[in-house]
């Protein structure tokens, strides 16, 4: 079997699972690994990876879905903006159905709001150039993979003199919430499956403090089933050996130092601030907002609007799901009052949400 075939084979996946089983055989206490990347969450549910693992290895999902960790107030502002005359909202499709306090962008679109789904923030810049009489607001939600692309779109708008392009940002950065959750005795996390593409930007070195200060195993892992299982195996191997360090399973794409250019662009436009995470609360320095110099692109400053009072969704346990404390199956609304067609919380609607993954693949 050559190298390429090795990865194609289902036997490899099962073989990896068997290796993990042998590795931890004889160990009584469980080890807990958290993934903090929505695409990992989806892969783990889609390929039934939990069912392949021995009982000693527990995988829990963390705050890896950027749409899910964004508080309702952000959606409410986007909804309010969409109701202003002369405003066009451009967004990734994920946000459309996410329920805000009393409405969603989908509902606003049905009511006649000009809300368009784009693939890239650069498409939104092009849209703004085409509609000079309108204010085009892109909804910038995402972690360190997406933030540089939003920064790139603003630089592009500036270069092309597109003055009617704005961004409503809610960018968050990953290592801080991982630090916070790692100190939670209730979770007792032994290691992290570190995100794939976030790490392409921030670099695997960004997790070194988690290994050193908190004694956590950290493995940057890719998206394929064989990747995920290999990542779990590398984590389990560290725990069994009593070690904790940062390793890169996804070395095809992720380097220890990451993508310095993307980080430069991000630092040029954004500054850290204390961001509010759904379910977790305010984490110091865990968000990115536009700096003074680029404030004219910031929809929150440049386009004043009244935003409705914030209302949480009664009964939704999304916040605890995002901390890995409960699984979607523990939520009484799961698959009864809450489904992807009629979502109660953001975790059910985003394509990266844990409840959505559990609904689609886990039942």
């Amino acid at each position: 079997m050559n190298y390429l075939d090795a990865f194609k084979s289902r036997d490899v996946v099962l073989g990896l699972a068997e290796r993990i089983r042998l590795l931890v055989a004889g160990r009584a206490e469980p080890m807990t690994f958290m993934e903090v990347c929505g695409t990992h969450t989806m892969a783990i549910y889609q390929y039934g990876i939990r069912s392949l693992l021995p009982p000693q290895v527990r995988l829990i999902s963390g705050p890896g879905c950027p749409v899910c960790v964004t508080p309702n107030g952000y959606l409410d502002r986007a909804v309010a903006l969409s109701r202003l005359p002369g405003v066009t909202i451009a967004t990734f499709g994920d946000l459309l159905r996410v329920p805000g306090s009393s409405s969603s962008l989908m509902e606003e679109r049905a009511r006649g709001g000009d809300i368009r789904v784009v693939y890239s923030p650069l498409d939104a810049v092009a849209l703004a150039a085409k509609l000079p009489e309108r204010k085009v607001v892109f909804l910038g939600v995402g972690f360190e993979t997406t933030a540089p692309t939003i920064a790139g779109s603003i630089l592009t708008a500036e270069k092309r003199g597109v003055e009617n392009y704005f961004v409503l940002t809610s960018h968050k950065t990953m290592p801080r919430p991982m630090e916070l959750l790692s100190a939670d005795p209730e979770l007792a996390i032994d290691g992290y499956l570190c995100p794939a593409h976030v790490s392409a930007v921030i670099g695997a070195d960004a997790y070194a403090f988690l290994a050193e200060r908190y004694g956590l195993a950290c493995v940057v892992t890719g998206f394929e089933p064989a990747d995920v299982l290999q990542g779990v195996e590398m984590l389990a191997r560290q725990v069994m050996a009593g070690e904790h360090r940062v390793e890169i399973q996804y070395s095809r794409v992720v380097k220890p130092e990451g993508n310095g250019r993307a980080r430069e662009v991000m630092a040029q436009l954004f500054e850290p601030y204390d961001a509010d995470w759904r379910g977790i609360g305010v984490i110091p320095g865990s968000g990115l907002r536009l700096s003074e110099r680029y404030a004219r692109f910031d929809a929150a400053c440049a386009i004043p609007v009244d935003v409705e009072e914030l209302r949480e969704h009664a009964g939704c346990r999304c916040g605890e799901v995002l901390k890995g404390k409960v699984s979607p199956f523990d939520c009484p609304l799961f698959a009864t009052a809450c489904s992807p067609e009629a979502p109660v919380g953001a975790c059910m609607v985003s394509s990266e949400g844990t409840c959505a993954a559990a609904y689609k693949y886990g039942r």
Partner: protein
Amino acid sequence: MCVGVPMQVVSIDGDEAVAEIDGVRREASLMLLAEPVAVGDYVIVHAGFAISRLDEADAQETLAMMREVFSPEEMG
């Protein structure tokens, strides 16, 4: 949601590239990459921007994995 598919650069005009995989073409800005990219190279594209360049062998390995997607039934 991130897509891990490496795409091959088929044309470059300044900072703007076009990348392709399995007949699907996407515009990909190169402004977030420090390393030089040439036609024929593989990149990971996120929301219209190339965020990482891959070695050809790594890209082929990833593509081979991705084309062989397991169905949940197969995974038992």
